[in-house]
């Protein structure tokens, strides 16, 4: 008999929309053991290949059943530097959980029966954090005189810095913003990733001796070549996908039309939700429309709804998506949370134009209804606008969350760095080395938008290549 999955405790939806506190509270020890015991401990586990970095999931889950939480923590740490972060933000239902034998087959994402691997990872990660477990550093005297620069302090950069510092290499991270963390700081809201978790990981790097230089833009204040000639033996570029894409339809520059990046940065990095104590303003509408179907769209919508609630505006936030719920790239968990919180979904809708009032503020969005067509290159059915199906929706604040493109601030001034048609860096798949000798890259600047865990996987690979290169 297959036991029912152990439900995770969450703040009630009515409570959580009044603040930015973490929604999920995590398993207790007892709950974690119960959930871990549901694992069949397959002879040939399918979940492990489902993990982008190949965590020994079977083993760490077994260790939890044995109450060897420390062991579980270190099993995860072998492959993943930030279990507490990944346990919270990994799209597990598309990865390890989808591959779990308990999940029904043929679905685009895991069914609820799949083992809650991510919640168990989070349990082990938080245990390690609470007990201050430190992955053993393996300082190599031969490497201690090398200095490596990491550009960008998002998931890829933080991971590479940790990997390299642990073997004794002197590490300097350059971050352009005033606080480190990259997308974990400016993009992901604190109700999904509490900032003390991020700060813990950053503090740990500092304890390892990593120097973090904020307010420093490589490509502006220092050229890549200068880093290489001024004592850095290698450079890792974790630049991220930092430029918001827009729809390219009329009215997109009307007032109160935000990119999701701007909206989230104002709230997450600049604390605009605490205006006027914090001075960065943000506008809040009565009819907020978020366009897009990814995690960023969910984050933006859920932040927007909270801002409405906190400011005494009756919550009214709608997501417009051109396909249906099944094709949405967002995590199922986030979609469910968004629904519980009262976000409305309007599927099979394609915006045509944003219409404004005389002062230049957005007032309505003109849309077309769509139907689903053939499967496209993304493997999902494409949306086909239906002619003559025009309709308008009220909208006094719009957030465009349709994806991100490469930020060209460094590549545009560094012609030696080869990029593809999207502006992403071209790297050797084995070593993650770019077209410039001793310069490596990983994360969203390689191959476009991906997940935190994928970014870390690339960073680990690059770090190993750097270590191999310096050990020669």
């Amino acid at each position: 008999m297959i036991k029912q999955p152990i439900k995770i405790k969450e703040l009630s939806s009515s409570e959580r929309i009044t603040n930015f506190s973490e929604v999920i509270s995590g398993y207790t020890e007892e709950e974690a053991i119960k959930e871990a015991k549901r694992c069949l401990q397959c002879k040939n586990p399918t979940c492990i290949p489902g993990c982008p970095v190949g965590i020994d999931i079977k083993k760490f889950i077994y260790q939890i059943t044995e109450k060897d939480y420390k062991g579980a923590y270190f099993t995860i740490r072998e492959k993943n530097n930030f279990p507490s972060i990944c346990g919270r933000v990994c799209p597990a239902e598309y990865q390890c959980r989808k591959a779990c034998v308990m999940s029904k087959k043929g679905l685009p994402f895991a069914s609820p029966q799949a083992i809650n691997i991510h919640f168990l990872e989070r349990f082990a990660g938080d245990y390690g954090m609470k007990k201050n477990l430190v992955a053993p550093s393996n300082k190599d005297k031969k490497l201690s005189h090398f200095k490596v620069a990491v550009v960008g302090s998002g998931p890829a950069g933080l991971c590479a810095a940790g990997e390299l510092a642990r073997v004794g290499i002197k590490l300097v991270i350059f971050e352009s913003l005033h606080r480190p963390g990259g997308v974990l700081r400016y993009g992901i809201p604190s109700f999904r990733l509490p900032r003390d978790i991020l700060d813990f990981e950053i503090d740990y790097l500092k304890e390892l001796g990593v120097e973090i230089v904020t307010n420093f833009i490589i490509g502006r204040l220092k050229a890549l070549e200068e880093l290489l000639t001024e004592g850095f033996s290698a450079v890792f570029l974790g630049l991220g996908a930092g430029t918001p894409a827009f729809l390219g339809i009329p009215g997109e520059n009307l007032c109160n039309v935000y990119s999701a990046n701007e909206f989230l940065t104002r709230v997450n990095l600049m604390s605009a939700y605490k205006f006027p104590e914090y001075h960065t303003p943000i506008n809040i509408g009565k009819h907020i429309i978020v366009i897009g179907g990814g995690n960023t769209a969910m984050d933006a919508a859920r932040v927007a709804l909270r801002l409405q609630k906190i400011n005494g505006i009756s919550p009214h936030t709608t997501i417009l998506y051109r396909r249906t719920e099944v094709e949405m790239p967002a995590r199922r968990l986030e979609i469910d949370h968004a629904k519980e919180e009262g976000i409305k979904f309007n599927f099979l809708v394609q915006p045509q134009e944003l219409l404004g009032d005389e002062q230049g503020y957005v007032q309505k969005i003109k849309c077309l209804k769509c139907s689903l067509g053939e499967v496209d290159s993304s493997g999902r059915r494409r949306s086909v606008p239906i002619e003559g199906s025009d309709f308008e929706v009220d909208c006094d604040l719009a957030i465009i969350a349709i994806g991100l493109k490469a930020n060209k601030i460094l590549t545009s001034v560094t012609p030696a760095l080869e990029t593809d048609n999207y502006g992403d860096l071209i790297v050797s798949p084995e070593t993650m080395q770019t077209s410039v000798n001793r310069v490596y890259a990983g994360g969203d600047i390689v191959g476009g938008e991906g997940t935190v865990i994928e970014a870390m996987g690339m960073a680990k690979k690059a770090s190993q290549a750097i270590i191999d290169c310096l050990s020669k």
Partner: protein
Amino acid sequence: MKITEKKILSEAGGTRIIQLKVASAPIASKVKPGQFIVLMVTEKGERIPLTVVDKDKERGTVTLIFQEVGLTTKLLGRLNKGDCLFALVGPLGHPTEIKNYGKVILVGGGVGIAEIFPVAKALKEEKNSLTTIIGARSKELLILEKELKNFSDEFYITTDDGSSGKKGFTTDILKELLSQGNYDLVYAVGPIPMMKKAALVTKDIKVKTLVSLNPLMVDATGMCGVCRVTVGGEVKFSCVDGPEFDAHLVDWDELAKRNRIYEAKEKHLCNLYKL
């Protein structure tokens, strides 16, 4: 990020224009005319962009000039020599293309006068013939008069009230000059209505005209897109594609509207903090 010098350049009717020198050897060694920085006064503050007016490579300082308008500039104005900024990042944006254009007219309005200063200095070094027009509401609000005069072959002042130079607007003089002679470039920085007018004046006679725009910014590295402007029908990010653009192609009305998005909140902040 330490303030090494503070000077109140002008004070009239509750408006102050202040000059700060801020220590940042790396920025001072890299910054070029036309580029800007972003700063935060306090940890709870906004990120605001300011043009780098001058630099001192030896002392490792950059010069910033600003008018106290909103809360952030007012808080910045309260800082004194020895105080530190919370954050300072730059240089940002594309530098001005400095070369020998021939005959150049520089137009500076209000605090925009400060922004034409580094360009004037650099263009003079390239042996351009410079005609400078500066304007402000009144005599007290004119800044860098002596400094700009030094670089200029011809120099004009206008004030709205006629308290210094010619009564009227900088663009009146611009129009007059263009009707009398040929020029190769007009470089204009000031309030949006002034830049828009300058663009109008030079458009018919097809004189290349550059403006440095001042839209709202947050990160100023191309990440948020709040500074997007329509230039020649295309959306550009002022922070990474600009801040200079061809004045004839800028959608001025859109920019003016977008710059007012937070006007009410700004007023509320100033009232609340009694500044």
